[in-house]
């Protein structure tokens, strides 16, 4: 693993930590401080700092340090939380993420000292340090506890004498811990090279009353039997060059009686007056990373048995890296985590390149197609439904479906990270406009395919900006209307009939319909004498080239309007709707497919072609009797269903596959929801059935085709086209009163 790889891991983890940090602070803000959350937040910043130290990102370290100290104040006393301080902390999150980004791209981070000073002032940080000292004194009352170390005596016996012996003396300076290193990592790495004997020299350890938590007292004598070369050993300590006194000598002589030296080590610990002196015992108790998983090497075994002894606080001191606790730095250092990563995460999560998952999804698609082919062949071969072949096929179908949902679940992610990102957007817009707004989340754990999530970021960002910039009034106006000065933007997600629905609700002024209509007339989007319902007017904001902002702000006026939002959501196979109540706010509601890989399709025949409609779009199907069809104007036919007049869309003609139909009673009507364009009654020859189909892009080898969303491969190997219902409904040419909608759809 090269240094660059490790850095990459570090930044990937930073992203996770940032998400945790932001989530935590958000939780504190909305439901008050709670010690677990505060600890989680603290740990996140601490980990970032530790890792940053290991890579020498000094700007990051120094800011994270102040941030951490500020959080420590809250950690020590939850009552220290107030609105201004929370605000400051949230801003710090933004700055921290900027600094991380700067370090990642290798650019010069912005000066953070301003905010750092603010933090220091607001949290009275010099004061806090004293409090921490008091705490140390309180801990000094702990009594030491004897630990049963079991059969430690066996540990030192070497199994097989290896080629070379080295004697290493290792005395870390305090700065090593400050940079977030952990001696334990070096020992583990050495232990991987051969047989390692560790002796801890605690002679310099002062009495607890004289112990300074920031000093380094412990030294280690290491004997290593290994086949590795001296350079390999030196490489282990590469990271801490200059941070420790290190000497490596090749002895060639057998190691000393290690059982004895371990005893001596333990004894020396025992003799230490008191077991306290670790300012942050919590870190040990809670940190799973200090639990070694590689039993079998002496160091790990020692710690393992210590952990197994269900360490009371003082026992932690016996751990070789107890020292790390003294400086309150080492226990979670990222340098060590890079090495320990596999050990820790194996049981919980794994990081997989998304390409690998994509491949799996593609293969899964092929499997679905193949299974459909097999089903067709079995049908053709004339096997009965109860024949063993047919039954085996049913089994296969069930398995395929399960594999499919399993594979899809791998790629499914909660929408939370995207939602959390929005809180930053809101803060930015607020500070740019002087408005006050809070983000409220609901259903942020709702899961959806990552490809959908990625496509969601831009439109969501834009809509959130709009909600604050155009929706929420400034504090004075709000006050005069009797609303709380803080506006609320509520972002919620939930699953509904196989789709994910995302809603953005603000409690702002709502849409000013008069202004919207005037603007639309002025821009020539609607005719001057057009009669539009409130809903129609609201939806005008999605029309191309429409922007109501009187002054184009640099917040939401970026040259793109809501039409771009609508387009990008449509590109994801989604729909967006708006409803607004003047004076009370607006609600944007987006409905998106859960995945972009498969679709429940309704297979239909029309004009000799097999076509697929998304089942989610089909509201009902029916056959028509002569009396059901009404003619409006010369050529426009509508059908009365669901108490509405729904235009009949002759699909074959619309797609140019067939001439105009004359007899509307032959064939089947499918009432299809076409997003905000209302409904359409699609007329097709027949319905073949319902089937899960794999979405294949037409664009990858050809180009986007109007009215067609994508293609799929059917069981017989033929390609069928998946219809873009929204497009077909909005581009039909039957009813002149639709002219408005059509021009809106562009």
């Amino acid at each position, binding site marked *: 693993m090269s240094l660059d790889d490790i850095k990459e891991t570090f930044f990937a983890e930073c992203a996770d930590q940032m998400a945790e940090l932001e989530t935590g602070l958000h939780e504190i803000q909305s439901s008050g401080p709670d010690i677990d959350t505060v600890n989680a937040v603290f740990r996140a910043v601490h980990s970032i700092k530790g890792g940053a130290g290991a890579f020498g990102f000094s700007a990051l370290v120094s800011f994270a340090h102040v941030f951490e100290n500020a959080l420590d104040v809250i950690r020590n006393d939850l009552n220290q939380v107030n609105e201004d301080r929370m605000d400051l902390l949230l801003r710090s999150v933004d700055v921290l993420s900027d600094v991380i980004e700067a370090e990642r791209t290798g650019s010069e981070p912005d000066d953070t000292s301003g905010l750092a000073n603010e933090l220091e002032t607001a949290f009275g940080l010099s004061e806090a340090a004293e409090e921490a000292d008091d705490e140390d004194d309180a801990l000094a009352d702990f009594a030491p506890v004897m630990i049963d170390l079991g059969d430690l005596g066996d540990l030192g016996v070497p199994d097989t004498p290896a080629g070379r012996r080295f004697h290493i003396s290792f005395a870390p300076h305090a700065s090593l811990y400050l940079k977030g290193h952990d001696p334990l990592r070096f020992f583990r790495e050495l232990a991987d090279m051969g047989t390692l004997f560790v002796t801890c020299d605690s002679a310099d350890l002062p009495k607890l009353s004289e112990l300074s938590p920031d000093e380094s007292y412990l030294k280690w004598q290491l004997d290593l039997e290994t086949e590795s070369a001296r350079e390999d050993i030196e490489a282990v300590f590469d990271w801490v060059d200059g941070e420790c006194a290190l000497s490596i000598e090749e002895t060639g002589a057998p190691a000393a009686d290690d059982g004895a030296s371990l005893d001596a080590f333990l004894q020396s610990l025992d003799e230490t007056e008191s077991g306290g002196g670790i300012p942050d015992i919590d870190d040990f108790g809670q940190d799973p990373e200090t639990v070694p998983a590689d039993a079998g090497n002496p160091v790990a075994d020692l710690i393992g048995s210590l952990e197994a002894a269900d360490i009371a606080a003082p026992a932690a001191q016996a751990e070789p890296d107890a020292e790390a606790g003294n400086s309150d730095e080492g226990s979670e250092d990222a340098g060590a985590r890079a090495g320990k990563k596999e050990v820790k995460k194996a049981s919980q999560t794994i990081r997989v390149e998304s390409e690998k998952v994509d491949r799996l999804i*593609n293969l899964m*698609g*092929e499997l679905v*197609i193949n299974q459909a082919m097999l089903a067709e062949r079995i049908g053709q071969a004339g096997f009965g439904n109860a024949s063993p072949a047919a039954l085996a096929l049913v089994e296969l179908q069930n398995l395929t479906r399960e594999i499919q949902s399993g594979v899809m679940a791998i790629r499914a992610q909660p929408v939370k990270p995207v939602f959390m990102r929005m809180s930053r957007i809101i803060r930015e817009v607020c500070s740019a406009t002087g408005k006050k707004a809070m983000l409220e989340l609901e259903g942020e754990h709702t899961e959806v395919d990552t490809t959908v999530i990625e496509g969601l970021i831009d439109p969501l960002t834009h809509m959130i900006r709009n909600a604050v910039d155009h929706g929420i009034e400034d504090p004075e106006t709000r006050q005069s209307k009797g609303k709380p000065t803080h506006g609320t933007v509520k972002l919620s997600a939930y699953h509904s009939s196989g789709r994910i629905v995302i809603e953005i609700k603000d409690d702002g002024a709502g849409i000013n319909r008069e202004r919207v209509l005037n603007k639309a007339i002025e821009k020539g989007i609607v005719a001057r004498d057009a009669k539009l319902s409130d809903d129609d007017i609201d939806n005008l904001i999605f029309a191309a080239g429409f922007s109501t902002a009187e002054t184009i702000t640099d917040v939401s006026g970026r040259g793109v309007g809501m039409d771009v939002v609508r387009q990008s959501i449509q590109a994801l196979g989604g729909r967006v709707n708006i409803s607004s109540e003047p004076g009370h706010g607006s609600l944007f509601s987006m409905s998106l497919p859960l995945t972009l890989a498969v679709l429940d399709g309704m297979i239909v025949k029309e004009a000799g*072609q*097999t076509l697929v409609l998304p089942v989610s779009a089909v509201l009902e199907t029916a056959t028509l009797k002569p009396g059901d069809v009404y003619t409006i104007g010369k050529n426009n036919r509508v059908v009365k269903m669901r108490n509405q007049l729904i235009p009949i869309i002759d699909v074959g003609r*619309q*797609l*140019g*596959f067939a001439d105009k139909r004359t007899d509307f009673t032959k064939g089947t009507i499918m009432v299809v929801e076409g997003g905000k364009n209302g409904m359409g009654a699609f007329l097709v020859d027949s319905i073949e059935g319902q089937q899960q189909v794999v979405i*294949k*892009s*037409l*664009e*990858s*080898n*050809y*180009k*986007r*085709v*109007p*009215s*067609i969303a994508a*293609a799929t*491969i059917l069981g017989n*190997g*033929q*390609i*069928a*086209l998946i219809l873009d219902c929204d497009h077909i409904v909005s581009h039909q040419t039957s009813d002149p009163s639709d002219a408005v909608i059509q021009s809106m759809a562009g």
Partner: protein
Amino acid sequence: MQDDLEMQTVGGEEFIAFRVGDQEFCVEITRTREIRGWSQATKLPHSPDYIIGVINLRGTILPIMDLSARLGMGLSEPCERHVIIVVHVRDKTLGLLVDSVSDILDVGPDHLRPVPEVNPSMSSEMFNRVIVMDKRIICEISLEAITPEMELQAA
């Protein structure tokens, strides 16, 4: 790969030649991926007449272009004896419907000529070069030139 081929053919280039109507055309052999028989294509709506439709090429959607129609030589009526030459154009894969594959040519630089100025109706910009061998005249199709609409989408 390409270099190897050129080495073997002593400075010459290899082309795959095929018939469309009563004429012969060719493309560089390195641009072709495979040759396959005709199979029924699925029609695409709102597409130019020279795009016959799409077929399933082992799980990918392959658009098929009627080369005869594209070159202004009239629509083909695809049937079993037609052949599809699968070629790479830009980052995409395209099937060219031709009457038959006629030859694999190893052409030295002497036989490669620039496209002469001919009647503009024959759209000489669709060709890169002309191979003149014995009594045969074979135009090399410019795959980029015959697929301008795909370029727009690729951007």
